[in-house]
């Protein structure tokens, strides 16, 4: 390391010599090692060869937003000292079943390379990757210092893989399993943590359904004195939860199990006191099947809550309003639309510090019973919560006027994701398209980084976006637009655009090809069910060799149409692990 990092003095310019002599590489590396933002590090590495070298030696964490943009070989060659890797795989629309199975993004090749080059790897965070039990077993056996595993929206593994991790990772501090397509065959994996194992700080198995051995869980919680985050699954009852809380009063984040049980007075009092004893809880989630009867046990704990995740609990407006009165410090709130507008009004009245709101639909396909939230709830929150900057809102109706009011109240939106659930629905009061709503958003919210649009939209929406959304990085579009011009406006007008995902829009070849140079400055483009042809894709692929142009064909569709197109920049060349349904052009 020493010899490589000492710069060979090739051009003896005195001024240069003086500067470099006073700033040896070791110092540079120490300074750079304080940099944590990967964007800053990328900038630093571009300054000059010295800095590039110093940066690559000092980098310990790497974030790869698209696993196919680089290969394990290239990565390990450039960065010799990595301890923490974050990898994202499949295009986001794979979450919604739009990507064929076996598409790729398999972690195994990476692990094999890491075993050789990064044997001291400590952290692995994966999102939308294909992970097999075999890979998890490999991971558990080849990295003695391994500490942190986080899997979000991954698939391909089962609880057997988790058992391998629990059994072999002696230094594990974090096991975080979230919203994965996991095959849950049994809860016995939890019992695989050896009795001598005490290092756990984060345990999240809320995703799983199988019953775990509660004695083993209790013992685990008791001996892991540094446990800060515990998120259990549905199989854990209230009584069992109480016993866990008593053993871990230091908890900061709690995901409860089932909140439904027949508790008589004594166990209820015990539960309440256990909650009261956990004075550090700032994040609460779970509450599966919560019966409102027991919610008051939480009231005291809610005083310090900053993040409340009720997105798996179908609370009605009344009981939710009663709960939210006790949460004055709330900054992030995730709820189901069963709380209705009234519930959101309560949020507006009680949570002035709120920064993030996500409202999920409890039953989006329900035709007979209409619940849910409308524009009124959103407006009510905007009046009461002026710091709101992140919103994900599923609703069945919206108006242009309401959105204009909302952004007037809250001009600091960085993430505005509005999903009017019926595709192509206009303003229900005026019957006009929703163009002016999103126009208001981009005109008012200059810090906007992420936007998802919905409702009936013409090209005007995209003209607005191209003209005003100068900080926009991610745009999601579905069932919108009238012509190629829409997409062109966005490609021409948004300098910071990194991810563009489009489905079911009338954008065609002209639009696709207008972004020729742009795509290299973006992470990726997804277009499905649009009017793009294979020939246009081939032309794009031919002219831009540093882009991978992949087309996913559907059975029985016309050969000249490109049903689903995924285009991304890469230094690794075309990938070799694509399934037959994915054509690389």
């Amino acid at each position: 390391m020493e010899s490589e990092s000492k710069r060979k003095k090739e051009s003896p310019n005195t001024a240069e010599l003086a500067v470099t002599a006073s700033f040896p590489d070791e110092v540079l590396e120490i300074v750079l090692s304080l940099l944590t933002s990967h964007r800053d590090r990328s900038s630093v590495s571009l300054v000059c060869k010295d800095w590039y070298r110093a940066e690559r030696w000092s980098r310990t964490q790497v974030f790869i937003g698209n696993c196919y943009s680089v290969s394990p070989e290239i990565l390990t060659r450039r960065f010799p000292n990595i301890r923490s890797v974050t990898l994202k795989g499949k295009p986001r629309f794979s979450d919604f079943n739009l990507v064929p199975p076996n598409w790729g993004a398999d972690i195994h090749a990476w692990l094999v390379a890491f075993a050789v080059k990064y044997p001291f790897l400590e952290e692995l965070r994966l999102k939308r990757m294909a992970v097999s039990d075999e890979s998890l077993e490999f991971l558990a056996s080849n990295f003695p210092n391994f500490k942190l595993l986080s899997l979000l929206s991954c698939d391909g593994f089962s609880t057997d893989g988790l058992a391998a991790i629990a059994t072999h990772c002696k230094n594990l501090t974090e096991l975080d399993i979230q919203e994965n397509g996991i095959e849950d065959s049994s809860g016995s994996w939890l019992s695989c943590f050896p009795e001598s194992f005490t290092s756990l700080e984060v345990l999240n198995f809320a995703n799983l359904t199988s019953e775990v051995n509660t004695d083993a869980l209790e013992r685990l919680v008791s001996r892991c004195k540094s446990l800060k985050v515990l998120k259990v699954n549905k199989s854990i009852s209230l009584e069992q939860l109480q016993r866990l809380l008593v053993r871990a009063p230091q908890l900061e984040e709690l995901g409860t199990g089932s909140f439904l049980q027949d508790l008589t007075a004594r166990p209820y009092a015990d539960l309440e006191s256990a909650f009261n004893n956990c004075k550090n809880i700032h994040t609460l989630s779970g509450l599966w099947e919560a019966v409102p009867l027991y919610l008051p046990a939480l009231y005291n704990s809610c005083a310090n809550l900053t993040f409340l995740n009720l997105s798996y609990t179908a609370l009605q407006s009344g009981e939710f309003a009663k709960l939210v009165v006790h949460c004055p410090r709330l900054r992030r709130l995730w709820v189901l639309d069963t709380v209705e507008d009234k519930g959101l009004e309560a949020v507006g009245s009680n949570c002035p510090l709120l920064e993030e709101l996500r409202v999920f639909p409890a039953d989006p396909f329900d035709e007979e019973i209409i619940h849910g939230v409308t524009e009124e709830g959103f407006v009510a929150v905007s009046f009461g919560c002026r710091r709101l900057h992140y919103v994900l809102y599923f609703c069945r109706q919206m108006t242009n006027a309401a959105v204009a009011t909302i952004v007037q109240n809250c001009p600091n939106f960085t993430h505005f994701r509005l999903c009017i659930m019926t595709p192509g629905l206009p303003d229900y009061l005026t019957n006009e398209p929703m163009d002016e709503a999103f126009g208001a958003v981009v005109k008012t919210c200059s810090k906007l980084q992420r936007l998802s649009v919905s409702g009936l939209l013409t090209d005007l929406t995209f003209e607005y976006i191209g003209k005003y959304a100068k900080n926009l990085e991610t745009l999601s579009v579905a069932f919108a637009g009238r012509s190629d011009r829409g997409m062109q406006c966005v490609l021409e007008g948004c300098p910071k655009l990194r991810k563009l995902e489009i489905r079911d829009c009338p954008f065609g070849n002209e639009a696709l090809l207008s972004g020729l140079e742009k795509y290299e400055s973006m992470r990726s483009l997804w277009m499905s069910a649009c009017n793009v042809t294979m020939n246009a894709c081939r032309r794009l692929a031919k002219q831009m060799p540093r882009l991978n142009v992949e087309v996913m064909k559907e059975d029985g569709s016309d050969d000249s149409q490109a049903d689903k197109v995924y285009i991304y920049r890469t230094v690794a060349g075309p990938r070799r692990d694509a399934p037959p349904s994915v054509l690389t052009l």
Partner: protein
Amino acid sequence: MSTTPLEHDYIGLSESSSVPRSSDKLSYSSSSSSCTEENYTSSNKACLNFKETELRLGLPGSQSPGRKPSHGLSLFGKDIENNNSNSNSNNTNGYAAPSPLKSLVSGAKRGFSDALDGVSRNWGLSINGKPDAELGKGAVLAQVVGWPPIRSFRKNTMASNLVKNNDAAEGKSGSGCLYVKVSMDGAPYLRKVDLKIYSNYMELSSALEKMFSCFTIGQCDSHGLPGQDGLSESRLMDLLHGSEYVLTYEDKDGDWMLVGDVPWDMFTETCRRLRIMKGSEAIGLAPRAMEKCKNRT
């Protein structure tokens, strides 16, 4: 550019080739992305024509007597009529409904903006203040792949939660209802029934008959013309107990059982959802039903 007209040509093609394929893909599941071959011209002609031949044995263009549009479905029927002068606009039945919906199915190749214009404008107009309109919206969503954009994990979790809430509904004050979903093989969307409002199997089956009559009419009558007053109860029972369709339900254990074997009260307690299944697919259910009954007693 000359590429544009080419694509419109492409879109206008293969109406006929889409017909046989689409005919057996009427029951959409949210994971199916195979309903993409439907070619949708701006006049809706292709869709409506195939619908005619697929599901009704009457002559194209003939009004089926006694066939009243059920509430909500006229939403689409009326609108399609308004839109298309040269189509078979007598579709005041529910079958016009799927046509605009098909245009939304991911991957459908068509003059999209035309389709959406027609569809969404009409939705906009009709939806205002009409309870009927709610039916249409849900029907649409059930067909579009991957929409609304919710992760499968969440969808599956909420689906099972909802069923549990239904089960527990009796315990809740003021909401003594027990909604279960009813699907029928071949029908484009699901319905929901409240089991609590019926007191026996006969009432349930006649309610189902009314709900699904528009879907079954094409199958039942050998003369090629639907019955005078729609489908009579006995006809549906014949249908249901005959070779065509079988009424089944999913119980608490996740098993599919034949309806009618257990006492009504036990049925409402254990039924999670209903499915009107094609007779050919129901083979093999009977033995399990018998076994379960034995185990229960």
